[in-house]
């Protein structure tokens, strides 16, 4: 034991002093692959991995799960040093974070997947977040909506109706308050939650007007302060001033935003589809309805935000690309991705197929997707991670009264380089 340790240490010291040979030696036999995935998908992937093993006797998929935040911080470090799992977690987008598709593809970490059978079926609306330089580098997995989950019973119990115009949103908040209810449960203590309401408003206000707004931003043809984003942030503030949200949302953590909705103390919550399973679990007696958040007074103009969650990519340095590709193709098969989406709940396959049964909660969402009234989460098209961070911090400050919507947008613009 000590000898091995000593040998390792000696080798280690040698390597550090520069005698490093960069031939990776990750132990990989031909029928084992490693896979690094988000905890949110654990149950769903575990089931698929099981099926994959049954279909391919003798192969092993070693999956490690971590929170998406953790993957964002660890996976790049691993790749930077030439390591990393064979099958990687990749987020859609043009550089919004350290594991977004364009960031990884640009650095040469990903295998070009354009020739896979499923790649040609990716809807045009998603190409901008799954492709880099006109080549596909990720399998998008499932499409996750972002909208308001209404507790149907609680809304009826309060004698209210789900709003379909911006004016109705504000009166919905007033009426809910009169009944002693919170209209929209909100907690800003976990920063990722802060951006959800603007992301729900932006599809109607920004991207329905100009689907290429993000490209214009990167090209310097559009800026945050001089665009419809001003209306987005102003309406967020208007909702706050109309007492739409939980009291003192800055101190409330994400965990504590769901129980009020499940118990009917709050009527709705603006969230991503991924939380649906959790909401359902907290109170199985409640039914939910996912609706877009209206942003104008024309109900037909309302669009919804939806993005692929964390998708899959293949490590360019993988010692076992063939098997890694076979695994990704397996997940992409209709029956498998449908099973995956059903296990998760609250999501639909990103590449549509006729065999998938949409749950009643997602009925409206599915209609909007079919009508192309959908746009990706805004940050997936932003050129770097700092913009989103400025947004998150800015919103907390806006709720503290320390920044105006215009200042928040200026801070964001300052990070566009």
């Amino acid at each position, binding site marked *: 034991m000590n000898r091995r340790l000593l040998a390792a*240490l000696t080798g280690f*010291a040698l390597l*550090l002093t520069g005698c490093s040979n960069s031939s990776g030696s990750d132990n990989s036999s031909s029928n084992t692959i490693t896979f690094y995935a988000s905890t949110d998908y654990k149950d769903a992937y575990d089931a698929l991995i099981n099926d994959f093993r049954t279909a391919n006797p003798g192969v092993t998929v070693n999956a490690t799960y971590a929170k998406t935040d953790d993957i964002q911080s660890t996976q790049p470090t691993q790749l930077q040093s030439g390591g990393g799992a064979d099958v990687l977690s990749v987020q859609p987008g043009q550089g919004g974070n*350290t594991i977004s598709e364009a960031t990884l593809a640009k650095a040469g970490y990903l295998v070009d997947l354009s020739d896979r059978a499923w790649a040609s079926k990716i809807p045009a609306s998603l190409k901008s977040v799954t492709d880099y330089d006109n080549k596909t580098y990720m399998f998008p997995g499932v499409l996750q909506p972002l909208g308001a989950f209404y507790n149907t019973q609680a809304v009826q119990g309060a004698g209210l109706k789900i709003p379909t115009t911006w004016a109705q949103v504000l009166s919905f908040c007033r009426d809910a308050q009169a009944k002693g209810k919170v209209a929209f449960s909100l907690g800003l*203590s976990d*920063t990722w939650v802060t951006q959800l309401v603007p992301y729900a408003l932006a599809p109607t206000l920004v991207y329905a007007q100009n689907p290429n707004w993000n490209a214009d931003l990167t090209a310097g043809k559009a800026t945050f302060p001089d665009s419809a984003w001003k209306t987005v942030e102003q309406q967020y503030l208007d909702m706050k001033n109309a007492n739409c949200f939980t009291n003192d949302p800055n101190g409330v953590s994400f965990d504590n935003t769901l129980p009020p909705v499940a118990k009917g103390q709050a009527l709705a919550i603006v969230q991503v589809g991924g939380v649906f399973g959790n909401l359902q679990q907290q109170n199985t007696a409640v039914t939910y309805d996912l609706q877009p958040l209206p942003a104008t007074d024309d109900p037909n103009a309302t669009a919804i935000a939806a993005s692929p969650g964390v998708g899959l990519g293949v490590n360019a340095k993988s010692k076992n690309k063939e098997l890694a590709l076979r695994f990704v193709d397996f997940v992409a098969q209709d029956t498998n991705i449908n099973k995956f989406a059903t296990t998760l709940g609250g999501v639909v396959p990103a590449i549509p197929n006729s065999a998938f049964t949409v749950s009643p909660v997602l009925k409206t969402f599915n209609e909007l997707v079919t009508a192309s009234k959908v746009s990706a989460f805004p940050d997936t098209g932003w050129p*770097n991670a700092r913009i989103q961070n400025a947004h998150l911090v800015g919103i*907390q400050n806006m709720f503290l009264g320390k920044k105006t919507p215009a200042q928040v947008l200026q801070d964001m613009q300052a990070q566009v380089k």
Partner: protein
Amino acid sequence: MTGKTRRRRAVVPLWFLLPGIVIYGAVVLLPSVIGSGYALTDATTGDAGTFIGLANFRTIFSSTDTVGPLIQTLVMAAAVMVLQNVLGLLLAVALNSRIRSRNWLRVLFFAPFVVSPLVSGYLWKYLLDPDGAVNQALSAIGLGSLRQPWLGEPRLALFSLIVAVVWQFTGSTMVIYLAGLQGVPQDVVEAASIDGAGAVRRFFSVVRPFLAPAFMVNLTLSLIAGLRLYDQIVAMTNGGPGGSTDSLSTVIYRTSFEFGEFGLGSAMAVVLTVLVILLSLVQYLGLRKQARA
């Protein structure tokens, strides 16, 4: 303690140092030096970067994104150091008495130290929620008017964070003071009390000199820990609201591992290192002068 006559000293070979120095040098020192090298580059995820001189340091000292956290780091470190030592010393003096429950209480006060910083951070976040245990307890004892959004307002959040850190580490500070107090000869203390010295005077003139090493250890360790605060912040506020509880460590982590800007992140780490070394050196020299005076 040394022998009466000057004897031949025991032989201690220099190579005894070797195993420790080799492991530590190869795994900590050398990579740190290499890491400092990144500070002079614009390295990012997937790009080794090019040499850009001191540009990163100019960015650090001119940007409000880093100056704010720098000041917050100093405030947190100072508050944690002072509170932890005052409380730790008081507890140690009280538990060095003849009370019957002293052994139990020592374990009780030390217990939070055993919990990981991350866990204690999550626990406090849970307790400090607007509908959480702290506010519920305030209502239950009729102090409902004191209910606060503990983590939702910049100053309160900073305060709550400091409380959580002090809660966790006071026990270990106490143990070190307790160890120091047990080195104080009882007969000296009793002689002073027979001479009519009150408890407070007895403490400052008789006991305090014996505690000098304990002060040194405690103040140094708590200062370093305060300046490097990271886990608790991540778990409780992640720097929020609005960046008001960001420390240098959280900003370094975000810059290097979330924005992928290794060069700038390493430069920040160099600044933190220099800060820690300078402040603890100043403190050390100050305390040594005090101890000799």
